């Protein structure tokens, strides 16, 4: 072997040096990675680790035709950091003010206020301000603008607190934000915030409910189906650099978000629109206190439309004044009323089912008293003058809404039996409607009834029900005697569009037999005939079955001693018409209830036949083409339709 370029001694020295160096590096590495590992990891974790939530997209709410009723969208919360503003951008301030719709003076005031002299807020307030800045906390109506729009930095040497962020507008669409960014004003920016959008505005607002700015479902379907709609937020844990920027290469763990499911309703936007147009017409024409319309398919209990007046726009729920909050109430399920004559269907159906009466039974409507359990009970006044009041058939009693006829049926049934039927028709208990805060109505147990109640409840007095309960009771007749659960949710679909759950017809129970239901339906056809109390509800070419109701309202009256007492006020009525068609093969049930329309009604009394029945007809006629409703071929049995003029109850 040839001699090397250096002496052995030097080479050994160099090699030893190198080994020592490598050994030193290795020892240091062992020290850092093994001995000192925990303390170093703690420091790194504290300073560099970053937890980032990934927000799941909230699912959509769709109508029966797949149209969007509620969807998720993003907006920007635009704000300004006054300390970052540059003098050369000042000439663009007016343009910015015009874009965001803010008075220029107000904008200048915000932009030029750079310090706050006020004392420091409590430490916890900053967190709240942070959330509010991102639009996740609802703005309290009574709060001053400064409370939720400004974020301060730590005070400077002179004790002033520099203002680092002031909200300018919290609902800036992306398109507008782009235009604002084009202005190039340094210090004006805004983070994304998720917002719920209701493209049809007030349409079906009471069914949909709304999601507030904290992204919490506050009412309606949004709240009821929140579990499916909200999805599951994801998160990732990684590291960030010294400038607080995420370092994606150091992603430690990631759980991806799972988007919310979509909920398909049975609400049909076109039918809902027809209903809301009719409500607008009622509101304009009669200026009632409130009104409700429900349209459903009686064969399966699915609600096609549910509208109330007054209404609201869920996009602007937070703009309602405290005195307007009642607009958000779904009065069709959350409010009760005395159903009045519409309720007579219960007594008639029960009497026919129990074979206490037949279609040929006769009633003496001239009698003003009746004996019951050894007592003489006064009968309610009769509103219709029958030509032969001593011999009124059941068909005549129904078509002219005889109070005394219904009262006599109630007495014949007896309290216990009648109560059982009333319960079976769905009164006095919630029907399980998923939204709107459904109430049970008021049906006292028999032991609490006054003796007179057995003559008053059959005519729809001394009992309170929701509009939906009355609607479902009528649907029992349309559905061959079976009470169905009113439903509004059709399907739940996952983010990929696959059906997760499908809702189907849900029976609560059979109330009366098929024969009884069909007999009552035929009797109710007389109501919407030329001779009945609701000739205005008749639809040409179709057999309409229904019942009018005109209820005198219970109102507070001031007594001589200054106290108030609930009394029947004959100047205020609730007009209603509840019916279905075609009577022989029902495809649609419609309820129209108008509360306190007397001041604009013909002759000062809002009769069901005059105020509510025409709305039924208008809605029904428009639904024929939409729902492809076929006229039933079988003619009405002539013998069952009464042939008298007049009568308005």
């Amino acid at each position, binding site marked *: 072997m040839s001699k*090397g370029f250096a002496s052995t001694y030097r*080479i050994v020295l160099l090699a030893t040096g190198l080994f020592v160096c490598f050994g030193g590096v290795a020892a240091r590495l062992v020290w850092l990675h093994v001995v000192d590992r925990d303390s170093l990891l703690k420091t790194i974790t504290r300073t560099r680790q970053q937890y980032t939530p990934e927000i799941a997209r909230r699912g959509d709410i769709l109508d029966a035709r797949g149209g969007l009723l509620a969807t998720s969208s*993003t907006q920007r919360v635009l704000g300004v950091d006054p300390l970052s503003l540059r003098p050369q951008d000042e000439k663009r301030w007016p343009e910015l003010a015009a874009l965001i719709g803010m008075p220029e003076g107000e904008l200048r005031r915000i932009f030029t206020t750079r310090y706050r002299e006020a004392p420091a807020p409590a430490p916890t307030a900053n967190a709240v301000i942070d959330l509010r800045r991102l639009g996740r906390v609802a703005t309290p109506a009574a709060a001053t603008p400064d409370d939720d729009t400004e974020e301060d930095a730590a005070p400077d040497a002179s004790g002033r607190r520099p203002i680092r962020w002031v909200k300018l507008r919290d609902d800036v669409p992306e398109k507008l934000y782009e235009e604002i960014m084009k202005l190039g004003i340094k210090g004006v920016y805004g983070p994304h915030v998720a917002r719920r959008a209701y*493209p*049809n505005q007030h349409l079906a607002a009471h069914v949909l409910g709304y999601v507030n700015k904290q992204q919490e479902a506050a009412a309606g379907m949004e709240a009821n189906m929140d579990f499916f709609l909200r999805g599951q937020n994801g998160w990732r844990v990684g590291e960030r650099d010294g400038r607080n920027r995420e370092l994606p290469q150091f992603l430690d763990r990631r759980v991806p978000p799972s988007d919310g499911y979509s909920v398909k309703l049975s609400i049909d936007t076109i039918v809902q629109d027809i209903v809301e147009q009719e409500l607008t017409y009622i509101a304009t024409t009669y200026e009632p206190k409130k009104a409700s319309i429900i349209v459903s398919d009686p064969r399966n209990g699915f609600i096609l439309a549910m509208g109330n007046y007054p209404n609201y726009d869920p996009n602007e729920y937070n703009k309602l004044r405290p005195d307007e909050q009642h607009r958000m109430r779904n009065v069709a399920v959350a409010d009760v009323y005395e159903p009045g004559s519409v309720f007579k269907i219960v007594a008639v159906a029960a009497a026919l089912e129990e074979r206490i009466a037949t279609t040929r039974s006769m009633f003496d409507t001239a009698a003003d008293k009746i004996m019951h359990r050894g007592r003489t009970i006064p009968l309610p006044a009769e509103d219709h003058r029958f030509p032969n009041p001593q011999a009124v058939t059941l068909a005549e009693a129904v078509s002219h809404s005889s109070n005394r006829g219904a009262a006599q049926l109630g007495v014949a049934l007896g309290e216990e039996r009648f109560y059982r039927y009333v319960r079976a028709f769905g009164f006095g208990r919630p029907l399980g409607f998923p939204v709107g805060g459904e109430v049970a109505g008021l049906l006292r147990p028999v032991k609490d009834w006054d003796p007179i109640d057995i003559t008053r409840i059959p005519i729809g007095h001394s009992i309170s029900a929701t509009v939906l309960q009355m609607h479902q009771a009528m649907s029992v007749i349309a559905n061959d005697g079976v009470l169905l659960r009113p439903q509004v949710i059709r399907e739940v679909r996952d983010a990929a569009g696959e059906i997760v759950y499908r809702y189907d017809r849900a029976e609560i129970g059979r109330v009366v037999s098929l024969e009884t239901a069909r007999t009552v339906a035929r009797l109710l056809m007389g109501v919407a005939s030329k001779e009945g109390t609701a000739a205005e509800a008749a639809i040409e070419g179709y057999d309409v079955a229904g019942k009018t109701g005109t209820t005198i309202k219970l109102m507070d009256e001031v007594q001589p001693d200054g106290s108030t007492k609930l009394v029947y006020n004959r100047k205020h009525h609730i007009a209603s018409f509840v019916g279905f068609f075609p009577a022989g093969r029902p495809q649609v049930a419609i309820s129209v209830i108008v509360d306190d329309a007397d001041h604009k009604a013909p002759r000062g009394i809002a009769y069901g036949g005059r105020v509510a029945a025409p709305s039924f007809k208008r809605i029904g006629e*428009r639904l024929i*083409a939409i729902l492809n409703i076929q006229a039933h071929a079988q003619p009405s049995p002539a013998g069952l339709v009464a042939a008298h003029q007049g009568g308005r109850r």
Partner: protein
Amino acid sequence: MKRNSQAFAHQLLVCLLVTMAFGGTIGLGTVWMRHQISVTAKANRALLAEINEVNRRSDALEAEIRGEQRPELLRELNLRFRLGLVPMNEVPVIHVTENVTQRMVERANRWSFPPASRENGPVTLRFAQR
């Protein structure tokens, strides 16, 4: 056999140099790889952010489109632009109460014998004889 200590030292030095070169290459390779991982991760994150942004804009646009198609606004535009469009839910329904066959025959004959021809009196047919 005579042991050549210099040769051993040379071998050791060569080994060390090779080790250093190898280690350096591995180190540089690792740095390059980590850089590439970082670049790829950043690109992925940017792509993901872009996808989210597109989805966000798509959602916003869809909501806007649906908002512009709401029935109330369409009715208002119909009136404003005097389009005279009839909503689909106002399709006229004609209830035929008379004999359907007779009605269809009359309707079909309207083309052959329009009302104007009936006003001119009865139709006379003349046949020429040869």
